[in-house]
């Protein structure tokens, strides 16, 4: 992996030059929170942000998208508009890149999703190092660093960014901006190592995920789910802001008086009362308790069985977004505590 060094005072020029690789989007402050959006000028970018309201998944799996249109005389016509649009996502945190790598497994695995894949191909990702706040627990979820899934990754080392080149496109970006870079020194590497260790020690939240999938399985009938069901509003906010929740609903909109129409997919949530509602009116998860249990079960247990690790990356968005302050780290600690109490 190629490693370079970019002086911070040249970051604006770097961002200007990489516009040739696509429209530059970055975290921008909005009403005291942060959102990824297109930059009108470099000063709008806030690389010191804690977390964006919505994760970068919104670029790869939009909240709502038309998949294809159908018309008797033309048959099925895939919707391709916008799929080839080139973007540069600037300032993505490591946990969110980790989440994209998880989504890659879902949408580029056994059932490849051409919409997701086209966007993943056309959207460049530039990562940036971050510091944990009171909701971050990515270290606990082993998602506090990434070694792939980005084109470039910027590590803040004082007056410079150590820049890791992750892909051929990242290398092209570095080549296009090569006069801005400087050689890496041993002092930079030493500082990088010190900062890396300091971040490790800076987390305020810490949970233990060893044996978690078994514990979730063992506690399937625990009363904790009923307690959570009493509190949970089934609003689905946790799913919407989650960087790895990928459920979507599919609907057909048929034109009046015609058999022509379009098929659309929209973000869905397993917390919604209609998520497990099937034809005939039966609902496999008709209580809030069963739905919130399902969410934990899928992310911490089902995903492990399917892909080898929990799908949670510890970004803390669900903690920040929950209107009734359900905290995943408390739930997990409670689950572990119940087990400990019984084992005594």
């Amino acid at each position, binding site marked *: 992996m190629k490693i370079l060094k970019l002086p911070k005072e040249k970051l604006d020029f770097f961002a200007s030059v990489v516009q040739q690789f696509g*429209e530059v989007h970055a975290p921008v402050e909005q009403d005291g929170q942060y959102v990824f959006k*297109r930059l009108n000028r470099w000063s709008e970018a806030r690389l010191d942000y804690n977390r964006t309201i919505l994760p970068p998944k919104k670029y790869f799996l939009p909240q709502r998208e038309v998949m294809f249109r159908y018309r008797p005389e033309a048959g099925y016509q895939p919707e391709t508009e916008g799929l080839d649009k080139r973007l540069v996502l600037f300032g993505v945190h490591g946990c969110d890149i980790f989440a994209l790598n998880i989504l890659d497994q879902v949408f580029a695995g056994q059932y490849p999703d051409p919409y997701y894949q086209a966007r993943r191909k056309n959207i460049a990702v530039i990562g940036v190092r971050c510091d944990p706040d009171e909701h971050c627990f990515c270290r606990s979820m082993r998602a506090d660093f990434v070694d792939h899934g980005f084109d470039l990754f910027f590590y803040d080392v004082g007056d410079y960014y150590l820049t890791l080149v992750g892909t051929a496109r990242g290398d092209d970006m570095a080549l296009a*901006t090569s006069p801005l870079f400087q050689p890496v020194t041993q002092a930079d590497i030493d500082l990088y190592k010190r900062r890396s260790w300091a971040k490790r020690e800076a987390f305020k939240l810490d949970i233990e995920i060893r044996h978690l999938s078994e514990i979730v399985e063992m506690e399937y009938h625990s009363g904790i789910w009923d307690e959570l069901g009493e509190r949970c509003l089934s609003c689905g906010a946790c799913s919407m802001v989650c960087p790895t929740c990928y459920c979507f609903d599919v609907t057909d909109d048929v034109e009046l008086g015609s058999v022509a129409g379009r098929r659309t997919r929209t973000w869905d949530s397993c917390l919604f009362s209609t998520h497990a509602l099937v034809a005939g009116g039966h609902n496999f998860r008709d209580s809030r308790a069963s739905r919130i249990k399902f969410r934990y079960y899928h992310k911490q247990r089902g995903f492990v069985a399917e892909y080898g690790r929990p799908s949670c990356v510890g970004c803390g968005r669900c903690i920040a977004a929950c209107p009734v302050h359900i905290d995943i780290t408390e739930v997990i600690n409670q689950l572990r505590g119940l087990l400990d109490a019984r084992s005594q």
Partner: protein
Amino acid sequence: MSATEKRILIVDDDADLTAGLAFFLEQHGYTVLVAHDGREGLRLARMELPHLVVMDIMMNERTEGLFTIQEIRHTPELKNLPVFVLSALYEQVPDFRIAPEAGWMAHDEFFHKPVNMPRLLERIRLRIGPDVPKEVPA
């Protein structure tokens, strides 16, 4: 506004430069619009649909013009608008050594400040033609 009127938008934070250049271009028959930052420039461009833009780079921010040009390129009704960059970027930031011809700047032509006015006029004429009102048959 005549049918053959050619409108040029100048976007530059230097009021002396915009006044001088506007006067010069108006003397040669062009209709000139002036904005002093990228945001205002974009607003005017969307509203007036000029035939050409003369754009500074370093305004409120030193890369403002570069982002404004990109926004022009991503605006459907403006994406083919010729953009002439007029900048002292390479003089003011000597260690920025990426040439404008390297393909990264979405401009059409680059002019170093201080600009050679007759040369700029010649290039504008070549790009959008002279602004000579023609007789319209009754």
